[in-house]
């Protein structure tokens, strides 16, 4: 890699030479230029989030040129007829002006809003992908926590942005936040006064949220994204299990040129799709709602999707749980939901450490699990998804009731029950499904794939021909980590600690029901078994046609290659 004397080596090389002689990029390029990235559709979820964030920065910057974050009362005199002469805040007026008086303004508002929805959605799905494939295992635990923080920051960015136009719905959202803050013991009402600059709604909140929304939160997201990606580079990307893919290597395509083209192109595709949605589908038509007023009713309204689960948690709290202790009000109907949300997020964030503690596995893991091969983890994930989903659906109890002609009270009570029963059912069902899929894989490895070809044997018996897998297909089904439960063992002082007992109990919970990967011995035995039977005879003539003497060859070929 000598670039110092490089002249006229081609367009790109000449430009690179110019840069290298000034800032020394050759070293960086040497290190990263051919870095290998594995290919899989599910790895693009995080990319979607990243690109949505870039779109947010671009469209958001445009919006800041026109938006005025002030709540001073003005009388509207713009082009939108229905609101002419109405009192409104400057923030709301400037939002209307962006929508109706700036060419492409509405387009930018809609791109910004859709990109925000997509950002949180993609981050959430990315989080699920990482969870269900075990990509959070060592050495990526810290990056998982960073990811969870990014997801939460995304919600924060979304909410602060949603509140800026100062329309009826966003004001109502802030009213709910105000109510929640007031419910905090001891300091609640005081904090509310600080946040709103006095009594709700005041004239300060939009400007304050604006500062958070356009500076603090995006800056934090940016920093955490940089940390996130930096760690991806350090760890190199995980890959799915497959032939030749190991914990000690990474198999895929080089950054330059393949991933520059693919990932770079994908940015334009994500941007393009967002632009298409924004051009054709209206979102948050604030002109229909009017400026914020604490009094009008707004039935059937919904927050942006990612706030839904928090709103649902508020709705599902039981009646009459507020208490009046020591002369003070304890708003459990608010504290309980907040606590539930916080505990859920903390559990999600620390999950890698819990699992690592249970397995005691200190090795690095770079080959991803297929979800079925970690049945209890997958089941825990499913339970978590159902818990979140019920809270989320809880935010739509009124819409569910009106659209399906049900009693609102029954819908809400069902949700309350479902919040507890749903995750348990999801856990049991998912774990059983995973174990069954593992057994299916095991059967396929041992006996081959069902072909649907029925053959009649000379003595009249009918059997189905099973076609053996080739070694590559087989490897996908047997390459997974297997753990077994442990007993509580005494430590060096001969004592069985509480920690050891708990860990043993957890290990039973995780690995009591386990299906070990098929070993070479078992495979051999299965083939012997087939050989000893008549059905071996059926496979032989078929095998002769396509791949002669498939089975014995496969058996021997494997050890030879390694």
């Amino acid at each position, binding site marked *: 890699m000598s670039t110092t004397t490089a002249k006229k080596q081609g367009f790109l090389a000449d430009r690179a030479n110019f840069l290298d002689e000034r800032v020394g990029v050759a070293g960086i390029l040497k290190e990263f230029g051919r870095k*290998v990235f594995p290919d899989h559709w599910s790895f693009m979820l995080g990319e979607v989030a990243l690109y949505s964030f870039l779109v947010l920065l671009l469209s958001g910057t445009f919006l800041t040129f026109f938006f005025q974050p002030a709540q001073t009362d003005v009388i509207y005199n713009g*082009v939108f007829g229905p609101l002419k002469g109405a009192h409104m805040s400057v923030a709301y007026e400037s939002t209307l002006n962006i*929508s*109706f008086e700036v*060419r*492409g303004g509405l387009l930018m508002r809609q791109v910004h809003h859709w990109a925000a929805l997509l950002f949180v959605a993609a981050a959430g799905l990315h989080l699920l992908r990482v969870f269900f494939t075990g990509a959070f295992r060592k*050495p990526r635990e810290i990056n998982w926590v960073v990811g969870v923080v990014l997801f939460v920051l995304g919600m924060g960015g979304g909410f602060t942005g949603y509140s800026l136009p100062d329309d009826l719905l966003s004001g*109502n959202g802030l*009213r709910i936040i105000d*109510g929640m803050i007031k*419910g*905090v*013991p001891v300091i*609640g*009402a005081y904090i509310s*006064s*600080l*946040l709103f600059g*006095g*009594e*709700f709604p005041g004239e*300060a909140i939009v400007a304050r949220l604006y500062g958070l929304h356009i500076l603090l939160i995006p800056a934090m997201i940016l920093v955490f994204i940089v940390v996130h990606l930096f760690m991806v580079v*350090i*760890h190199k990307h995980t890959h799915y299990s497959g*032939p*030749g893919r190991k914990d000690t*290597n990474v*198999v895929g395509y080089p950054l330059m040129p*393949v991933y520059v*083209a*693919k990932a770079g192109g*994908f940015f*334009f*595709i994500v941007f393009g799709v967002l*632009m298409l949605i924004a051009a054709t589908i209206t979102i948050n038509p604030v002109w229909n709602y009017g400026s914020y*007023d*604490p009094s009008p*009713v707004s039935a059937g309204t919904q927050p942006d999707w990612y706030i839904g689960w928090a709103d649902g948690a508020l709705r599902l709290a039981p*009646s009459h749980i*507020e208490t009046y202790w020591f002369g*003070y009000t304890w*708003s459990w*109907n608010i504290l309980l939901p907040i606590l539930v949300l916080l505990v859920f997020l903390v559990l999600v964030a620390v999950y890698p450490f819990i699992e690592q503690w249970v397995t*005691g*596995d*200190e*090795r*690095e893991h770079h080959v991803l699990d297929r979800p079925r091969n970690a049945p209890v983890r997958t089941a825990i994930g499913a339970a978590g998804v159902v818990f979140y989903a019920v809270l989320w659906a809880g935010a739509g*109890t009124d819409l569910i009731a009106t659209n399906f002609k049900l009693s*609102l009270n029954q819908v*809400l009570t069902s949700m309350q029950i479902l919040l507890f029963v749903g995750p348990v059912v999801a856990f049991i069902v998912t774990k059983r499904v995973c174990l069954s899929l593992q057994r299916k894989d095991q059967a396929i490895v041992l006996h081959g794939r069902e072909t649907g070809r029925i053959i009649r044997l000379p003595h009249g018996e009918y059997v189905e021909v099973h076609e053996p897998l080739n070694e*590559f297909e087989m490897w996908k089904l047997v390459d997974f980590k*297997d*753990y077994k439960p442990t007993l509580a063992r005494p430590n060096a002082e001969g004592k069985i600690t509480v920690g050891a007992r708990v860990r043993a109990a957890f290990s039973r919970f995780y690995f009591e029901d386990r299906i*070990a*990967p*098929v*070993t070479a*011995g078992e495979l051999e035995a299965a083939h012997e078994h087939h050989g000893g039977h008549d059905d071996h005879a059926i496979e032989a003539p078929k095998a002769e046609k396509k791949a002669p003497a498939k089975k014995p060859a496969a058996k021997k070929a494997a050890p030879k*290659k390694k």
Partner: protein
Amino acid sequence: MSNQGKSAAKGGAEHTYEGGLAVIPADAIKDPGLEPHRVRMTDKSPKHERAAVRQVASLFVLSFLGSAFSIYAYFAFPITDDLGSVRSNTLFLGLGITLGLMGIGIGAVHWAKTLMPDAEVSEERHQARSSEADRARALEIIKLADEESGFSRRKLIRRSLYTALAAFPIPAIFFFADLGKDQTNNLRHTMWKAGTRLVKDPTGTPIKASDVTVGSVFHVVPDGLVELEEHMLEEKAKAAVLLVRLDPADLKEDPAKASWSYDGIVAYSKICTHVGCPVALYEQHTHHLLCPCHQSTFDVTEHCKVVFGPASRPLPQLPIAVDSEGYLVAQSDFNEPVGPSFWER
């Protein structure tokens, strides 16, 4: 530094960790190694390769046309007084930009997939953990720094530094105190006073008791609220009231509060005692008030007690009477704070 690292990596033994509860079978099936690469049509046939080149270039040209169109659309579809123009401006501008973006995106990906090498390559990974030599050197540096500074040795310096570091952010917390004056006491009072007329929201017309028919509902604010120059919304957020007239036979009144209503007309705070949304969905045949935000339901016949949903307290009742002209007026302010609960309530 990098030289040092390299030589150290060679010398340092590979660190291995325990697998914990992992089972490592002795006779595991062996990894067959990477699958043989399958050659693409564009690699085999020059005709397909040329076609792919044409497709990629066409996509880039399409992108150019899209961007050009969006510039045209910016001028061709201006925003006029007709609001329909906003729609066509948004649509055509957006479609042009979409084409401009998608052409580049799909073109680049197509280029990568059809014309760039598609044979997977394998690269070694290294453990995140540094080499033994690097770790030893790092530990040495830490120890040296500790030794040279006396960080561990000089307890006085260390502890005084901790104290100073713990204290220095605290002034910043105080700085937030001027974000707003504590308004907790204001939460206990609203604009309602003895004799304040009940007027319709938003027109501001006073309400005659005789105009309120059984079963009707009025959205009410105190007289004078609309004219407020300052803090109109803050006052409204506390003083909004819902007025309902029931058949007096339906009312199950607490004797202590029986004088708060007038001939079956009752007035309740419209601000939900849960988190403060306006509670104003009135169901006539059940006499229930429903909050649209979180579905707290209040029974108007029984002093708006909570019959369903997350709220805990009944909606505060505004004591009302009739003045000499027959208009509805407040007897006093609410007798308890309205809106969401708070600690000192």
